[in-house]
């Protein structure tokens, strides 16, 4: 006998759990399916979360012992050549006090378990080790439940929320979200390197409990559209590096080779010196942006989080968009259930709510960003090289006048990249994030 639920959620990540939590709080009967042995078992992310979105779901998350690694008090941006690079950073007392937990690092295996536990306390049923293999539909094509890989594994639901991530097998199977093109995803690898807590405090110049994020662009991705990050955890560092999948394929570069070179970079090596590698993982990122977002609702179903390509590639914001979209999906579903209309029309409010939220506003604002990076490979080759050589020359004291140095630098830049191209690049760049 099939059990009936009001809502079935596929995936116990940030999108699925924030939806399940919001639904359970309203007394709605919700079941969540997770293919990993526990929530977070299969999840990979850089590891930064934002207090705003988590606070919307769990206002007292600190008091409820959210497993925070470090509260981020400083953000750095590096632009690297092969042998060195530029560093811009910003730190503010506000992030230690008033805006504490604006951003913080977490280990996803622990965080997701904790987050799912909160939803369970509110009455959501979280079923792990169970893969949703297909959706149930009636003759009219309307989604009526899910089929899992267990015996007697069908469950009927009035609404199904698809939140099984970028690697969504379900989205591919149902065709609700076409398989992303190589251009629209990045392949990233991550290594977690263990270091004593005090060593991290010293190397990053922070107090206990405080942390730093570093976002890195430049020649580290070997001329490919890509990015690297270093995040501080309590007693480990997360190093991630990734590049556009199409670029990786056409350059036949293996991500782990890129990671090894990144670890040996003169600005990175001293930070991880004598650290012990603990974990290694790989993940896709939805980088295609606004124009690759599929239709996010239909008869009896909704899509949230990275299954719906909701990811801000420029600001590396995925988990919080997942939480925001999951919560908006829950609100829509609650309204639809109350009105008794869980068809396409009844769920249409979801799209409107997303459009009105920061999720779609941000994604729309940066919709040209992915294409901009893909079309301007000099950002990852010529420009960091020229910048580094100019800075090196200006800082070298060798008896040559600064004026002569500037002239030679200007000539070198003009020889490497036509000024018109540079101007166009700056214009396109500004427009892509404008």
């Amino acid at each position, binding site marked *: 006998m099939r059990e009936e639920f009001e809502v079935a959620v596929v995936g116990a990540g940030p999108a699925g759990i924030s939806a399940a939590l919001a639904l359970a709080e309203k007394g709605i009967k919700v*079941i969540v399916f997770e293919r990993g042995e526990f929530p977070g078992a299969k999840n990979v992310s850089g590891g930064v979360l934002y207090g705003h979105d988590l606070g919307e779901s769990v206002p007292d998350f600190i008091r409820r012992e959210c497993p925070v690694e470090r509260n981020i008090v400083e953000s750095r941006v590096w632009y690297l050549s092969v042998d060195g690079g530029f560093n811009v950073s910003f730190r503010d007392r506000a992030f230690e006090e008033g805006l504490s937990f604006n951003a913080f690092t977490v280990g996803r295996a622990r965080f997701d378990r904790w987050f799912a536990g909160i939803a369970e306390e509110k009455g959501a*049923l979280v079923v792990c080790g169970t893969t949703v293999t297909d959706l149930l539909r009636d003759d009219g094509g309307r989604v009526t439940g899910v089929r*899992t890989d267990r*015996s007697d594994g069908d469950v009927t639901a009035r609404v199904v929320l698809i939140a099984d991530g970028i690697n969504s097998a379900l989205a591919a199977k149902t065709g609700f979200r076409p398989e992303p093109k190589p251009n629209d995803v990045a392949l990233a690898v991550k290594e977690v390197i263990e270091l004593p807590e005090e060593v991290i405090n010293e190397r990053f110049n922070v107090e206990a409990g405080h942390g730093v994020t570093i976002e890195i662009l430049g020649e580290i991705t070997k001329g490919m559209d890509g990015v690297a990050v270093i995040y501080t955890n309590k007693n480990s560092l997360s190093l991630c590096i990734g590049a556009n999948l199409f670029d990786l394929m056409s350059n036949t570069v293996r991500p782990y080779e890129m990671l090894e070179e990144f670890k040996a970079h003169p600005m990175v090596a001293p930070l991880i010196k004598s650290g012990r590698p603990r974990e290694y993982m790989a993940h896709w990122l939805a980088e295609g942006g606004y124009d690759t977002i599929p239709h996010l609702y239909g008869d009896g179903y909704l899509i949230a989080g990275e299954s719906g390509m909701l990811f801000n590639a420029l600001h590396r914001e995925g988990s919080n968009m997942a939480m925001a979209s999951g919560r908006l999906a829950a609100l829509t579903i609650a309204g639809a259930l109350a009105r008794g209309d869980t068809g396409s029309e009844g769920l249409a409010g979801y799209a409107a709510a997303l459009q009105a939220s920061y999720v779609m506003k941000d994604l729309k604002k940066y919709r040209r960003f992915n294409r901009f990076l893909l079309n301007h490979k000099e950002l990852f080759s010529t420009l960091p090289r020229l910048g580094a050589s100019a800075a090196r020359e200006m800082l070298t004291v060798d008896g040559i006048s600064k004026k002569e140095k500037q002239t030679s630098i200007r000539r070198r830049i003009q020889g490497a990249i036509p000024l018109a191209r540079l101007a166009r690049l700056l214009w396109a760049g500004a427009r892509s994030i404008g």
Partner: protein
Amino acid sequence: MNFVCCIKQVPDTAEVKIDPETNTLMRSGVESISNPYDLVALETALILKDKYGGWVTALSMGPPQAEQVLKEAISLGADAAVLLSDRAFAGADTLATSYTLYKAIRNLDLDRPVDIVLCGKQAIDGDTAQVGPGIATRLGFTQFTSVIEIRELNTYDRHITVKRRVEGGFEVVRGPLPTVITVDLGLARPRRASLPGLILSLRAVIDKWDADAVGAEVPKIGLKGSPTWVRRIFSPPLKEGGPVFDARKDPVPAVERFLDTIVADEELISELFKNPGV
């Protein structure tokens, strides 16, 4: 038929390492699992229940989080579960453990006479294989250890025929019920929980019995009731490689030296004759 199945929560020993400096188990971050032998015991109980009808109670002793293994048992089809949990039970060796489980089984027996108690042959963390026989002795039940096949269960004449592993081979034996059976891994392959079973287990509230509820005498449980304790854990020293007889250049003297060496080693000769397969 009324079945009781004993299940222990153990660290996933595939992931446990021994700290080379302190010689203690490094358990932090290691997931806890149901002892794999006990899952075979449960599967056997479920198969017998499917065939002959009856009731399966899963029983575990451990800290509150051991509830997890009983939830797993419910998800797989156990009809009831009882967790024996009390600070007073902590630090129990196999003697105290089998006493506590025996008292609990006696309680269950009062409700509904127990026909077959099933245990794993041993637990993967302690490897003692003593608790099953300890329970049987106290209950006064017949016992069959290292069972790899159940040949016949006669519920009318109340006897059971099993094939069990013994040193150097197997034996097929028959004995009367009630009985305690400890199972080897080959006996059955644990099933995967159905979805309704899994959902049921997530909602299940597991009965918890403390020392009072079990009716245990305090001097016989926990650390107090345990005459044995672990004094030290150590990693065995790495074995040195044996002698090498290089027969590449001149085989005859090398083989001669080899034969002289093994003939001189009485222990090795007797080993060789004991295990003709080697």
